């Protein structure tokens, strides 16, 4: 249930931004979930909805829209790209779970599938991102 902690960060950031924008009600919050973090979508949404209750400014029921972002990993050595889903089967359960907690440990447990380099970057689909907030002023 570390999804709860991430959901809490989304709700707090949403409220912060809504106050800055002087919103009276928050009607929609779009959140991107990066593939690497392997969030349990249902648990995450449940946590978001629970945490959104009785907030100020109020967050409308079912305001959260979750979108999954596929990952892109780019090798700095050979320049080729791939997706986390392409390499996931080569990782054991512990390695995969570690990436779920801290996505950057992908650099520890995986290598570029094309040239074997550990020097690659996550260009898309790392973790949880608050993309957009809509509301009424």
């Amino acid at each position, binding site marked *: 249930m570390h999804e709860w902690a991430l959901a809490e960060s989304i709700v*707090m950031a949403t409220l912060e931004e809504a106050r800055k924008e002087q919103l009276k009600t928050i009607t929609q919050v779009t959140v991107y979930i990066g593939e690497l973090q392997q969030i349990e979508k249902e648990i995450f949404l449940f946590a978001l909805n629970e945490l959104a209750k009785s907030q100020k400014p109020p967050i409308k029921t079912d305001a959260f829209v979750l979108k999954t972002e596929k990952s892109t990993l780019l090798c700095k050595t050979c320049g080729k790209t791939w997706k986390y889903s392409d390499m996931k089967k080569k990782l054991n359960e512990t390695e995969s779970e570690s990436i779920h907690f801290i996505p950057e440990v992908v650099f520890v447990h995986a290598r570029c599938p094309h040239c074997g380099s550990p020097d690659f970057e996550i260009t898309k689909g790392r973790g949880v991102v*608050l993309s957009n907030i809509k509301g009424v002023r």
Partner: protein
Amino acid sequence: MEPRTSVIEKRLKHIRKIIAVASGKGGVGKSLVASSLALHLSQKGYRVGLLDLDLYGPSSHIILGVKNAFPTEEKGIIPPVVHGISFMSIVYFTEEKPSPFRGIDISNIILELLAITQWGTLDFLIIDMPPGIGDETLDVIRYMKTSEFLVVSTPSKVAMGAVGKLLTILVELKKPVLGVIENMTMTNSVYIQQEMKRLRVPYLGRIRFDDTLEEAIGNPDRLLNTPVMKDLTRLLQKINL
């Protein structure tokens, strides 16, 4: 928008004092001082956390002999309690493999750890810092606003060159410096003491070089009875720890 920064203050809300054990130079004994400080405070009955932020070369777990421990998941992750210390380290997730992280990755890992770790109520959170004035130091200053620094040096002029730069930036940023510990001394040289006077930073004193220390590494009960711990305890009294 980066959401994790919004929750960090809440995560640290019930921690009375945050002490970052830092140095401009590697190999001066930061991890030993951080681990020993955490043990010392835990022995005094305080609720203590230890966060190893040396992401390339974590070593607090080796000093404390942490084995077969892993955080539990409960609305985040709760660090396991090891020898009375709530202990968090990247090593739970890296399994002692090499960690080829770039700067942006370091900042992301720190943000993630700070956002998801549920420390609960602590009297002290000790941070074992990596050497230098890189991302980790800047992120601790940025996200852990109440942190105070305990700086470690050796008697070497080479160490002092880098330690002086760290102290200068801490003073410039108006970060509280609890003091400087001179570690692994073999003579009564006053060089570091004089340098601290020049920099107007409190000099706490010396920890003498102890060639039997290695035998206590990995064994907290033995660590508590080393000459290093005796010297450290004496220096800590000067700052009421």
